[in-house]
């Protein structure tokens, strides 16, 4: 079967094309997932809609405390942005730990969202930031919280006629301490066996706001509402951190698969949450 390849220069034309082709079209952004799936998983899209010429989706912009990342913003762009390190530090470290320089120069934040992997590194940071995903179709324009956008491995609530145009979140307050760490087969260019990230604010010796998220230990990235609630208002102490890490390990639900085992992933969650909380406490107290 012959293939149709479309590379529109304007978003309206892209939306028009998607309206016509619907789920027959595969959307191409950075190519780091789609090309691999086409070569190795036998995916043969009837229509490829290449967003690469839509320069308007390549921008990082700010409006007051709101930060907007166009869907085609690359991991490398985020990593190198002078301001994001202070505004959303764990997003920067998560992006830095994705793949290689070559992959980060191509792979986009929109693609990371669309891929909906439970091991997505940048997406984990977006869960912590409580980001909203901007979806546009010829007829609709809507924003969906990232935690509602991704529903299962590889599954999202994107409709067949919608393009992910970007993602928006609020910059973190200056007193927020942040954390992201992943563990894979090796240190670099690796997919997470488990990953963890967090944001905490400490005031008068107590945890105030606390957000924690885990990757690769559930069908989607997860936040840890029980642990966050247990920490909020608690005094900062080694015992509190121990208990939070143990609770995180008890409440996640990892699986055995090609990359790791239930037991090891649960152990990693305990270690990563413990290490992350300790690091954020140290960073908040030295600030």
């Amino acid at each position, binding site marked *: 079967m*012959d*293939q149709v*390849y479309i590379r529109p220069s304007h978003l309206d034309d892209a939306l028009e094309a998607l309206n016509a082709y619907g789920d027959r079209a595969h959307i*191409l952004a950075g190519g*780091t997932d789609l090309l691999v799936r086409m*070569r190795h998983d036998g995916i043969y899209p009837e229509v490829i809609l290449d967003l690469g010429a839509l320069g308007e989706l390549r921008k990082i912009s700010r409006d007051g405390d709101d930060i907007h990342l166009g869907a085609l913003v690359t991991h490398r762009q985020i990593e190198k942005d002078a301001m994001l390190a202070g505004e959303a530090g764990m997003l920067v470290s998560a992006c830095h730990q994705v793949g290689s320089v*070559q*992959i980060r120069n191509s792979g986009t934040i929109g693609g990371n969202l669309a891929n909906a992997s439970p091991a997505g590194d940048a997406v984990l940071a977006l869960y912590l930031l409580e980001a909203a995903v901007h979806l546009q179709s010829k007829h609709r324009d809507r924003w969906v919280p990232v935690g509602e956008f991704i529903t299962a491995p590889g599954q999202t609530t994107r409709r067949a006629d919608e393009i992910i145009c970007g993602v928006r979140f609020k910059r973190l307050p200056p007193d927020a301490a942040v954390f992201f760490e992943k563990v894979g087969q090796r240190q670099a260019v690796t997919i997470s066996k488990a990953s963890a990230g967090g944001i905490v604010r400490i005031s008068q010796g107590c945890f105030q706001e606390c957000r924690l998220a885990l990757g690769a230990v559930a069908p989607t990235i997860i936040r840890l509402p029980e642990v966050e609630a247990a920490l909020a208002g608690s005094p900062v102490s080694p015992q509190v951190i121990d208990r939070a890490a143990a609770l995180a390990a008890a409440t996640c639900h990892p699986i055995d698969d090609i990359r790791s085992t239930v037991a090891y992933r649960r152990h990693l969650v305990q270690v990563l949450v413990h290490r992350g909380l300790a690091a954020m406490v140290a960073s908040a107290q030295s600030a």
Partner: protein
Amino acid sequence: MTKEWQVRFRVNGNSVMVSVPPMTSLAEILRQQLGLTGTKIGCNNGECGACTVIMNGKAVASCLVLAPQVAGADIRTIEGVGGDKALHPIQQAFLDEGAVQCGYCTPGMVMSAVALLEENPNPGEAEVKDAISGNLCRCTGYQKIIRAIRHYAAGR
């Protein structure tokens, strides 16, 4: 219907035009249409780095770039590094350090090093390792490669 795409772009400073099916990768265009076989195809999966080229100033895996995505781009390959008369100093540094074994990863390693040094003229060891983390050397000659890049940076 799959028609051929006319793609015009620049390679090593020269304007070129190719006519290829849209699913052709940049690595295939370079090697098969333009005869620039210094760019290697290893995994064809974006993991090994043998096909690394510099596209609009950034190191990318040319096996993961499709023909239409290259339109208007500025591509640099290993053939555009150095010249007929002399090696690029980073190539000389690889030679001086013995940083080449079988040679298959070398063009990609050099391209990653060039992209790094243009962005960051004085990288530390961690930055060098990060820059070549996407380039696999199955002869495992990493130490000499890292030393070559660091010596070149330090010696400038």
